[in-house]
């Protein structure tokens, strides 16, 4: 993957360069201390991935994204955790790294960028409408590589929309299936699952905690849309 780094702090750029040097198939093509220079570059060159600082003088990372017609995959780098929810609004953002960035967390972000760039192997290319079918009340069968794999419904933590696919995260494993949130929602028991955002259905029994506009499930922070929040609150056993 060819990438560029945009950050007004030289130290931060050097760190991302160093982290990239420890990943085999990532090449840093260029680095920029501000977004304006990067826009000029992107008008001429195509790249796969941008490491983008949010907090820059004059032109923020989010301002920059809005100038791009077809943005490549973006990994945000920031010293501020407060922008995480805003980041969910952009499909091109694959991850959000809080500085100082560690190698294990960086590698996880790169994997997300790779997954987002190319669908994983197990995704079937032929089946479209019948990838999911319910059998017994607590089971769901998903079609992966022409095999029907049984998933225990209560073991599902989150289901995330990813373009033409959905990512089903269970206690043990993740599955990517060619389907839509709407289709899978029809197969899920209402008492256990709730759509909290246009891209997320969650198992409400798996919620660890809730903040204003997000819920925590395992290690995933899931955004909750303002319109879905009342229903979520209604479903909780509040003291």
């Amino acid at each position, binding site marked *: 993957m060819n990438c560029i780094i945009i950050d007004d*702090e*030289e*130290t*931060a750029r*050097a*760190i991302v360069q*160093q*982290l990239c040097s*420890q990943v085999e198939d990532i090449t840093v093509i260029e680095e920029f201390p501000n977004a304006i220079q990067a826009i000029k570059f992107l008008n001429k060159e195509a790249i796969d991935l941008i490491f983008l600082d949010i*907090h820059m*003088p004059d032109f923020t990372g989010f301002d920059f994204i809005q100038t791009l017609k077809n943005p490549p995959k973006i990994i945000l780098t920031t*010293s*501020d955790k407060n922008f995480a929810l805003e980041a969910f609004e952009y499909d091109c953002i694959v991850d959000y790294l809080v*500085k*100082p960035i*560690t*190698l294990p967390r960086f590698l996880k972000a790169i994997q997300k960028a790779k997954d987002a760039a190319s669908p994983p192997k197990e995704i079937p290319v032929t089946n479209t409408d019948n990838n999911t079918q319910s059998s017994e009340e607590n089971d769901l069968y998903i079609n992966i590589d022409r095999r029907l794999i049984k998933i225990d419904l209560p073991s599902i933590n989150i289901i995330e929309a990813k373009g033409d696919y959905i990512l089903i995260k269970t206690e043990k494993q993740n599955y990517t299936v060619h389907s839509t949130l709407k289709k899978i929602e029809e197969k899920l028991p209402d008492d256990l699952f709730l759509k909290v955002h246009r891209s997320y259905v969650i198992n409400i029994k798996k919620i660890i905690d809730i903040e204003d506009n997000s819920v925590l499930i395992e290690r995933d922070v899931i955004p909750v849309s303002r319109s879905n929040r009342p229903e979520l609150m209604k479903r909780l056993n509040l003291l």
Partner: protein
Amino acid sequence: MKESPNLVYIKELAAGSEEFEQKLIHIIKREFPMEKDQFLTNYNNNAHLKAAENVHKLKHKIGMLGFEKGYQTTIDFENELKENNTSLYSEFMLILESIEQFLETL
């Protein structure tokens, strides 16, 4: 116990590369005094929002140099400044001075 800066994060990042370690220290030694000066200028001019932005930048280096309690103090000070509150200034300055002294030893 008073926190002191350290190179644990930088050494981990360098993964044995003395060249990278020295390069990064060199950049920090150059960038840190400029960021500190910008902060002091804005702070002394009562430009608290701009000073908060400077603190935001400094926060990365404070985290990199191993401060944990100091990192939280920096977050709190940045938020304070945005509300024109400066009660954590002295505590924050102690962190900056501690880094300054540490960088002189490198």
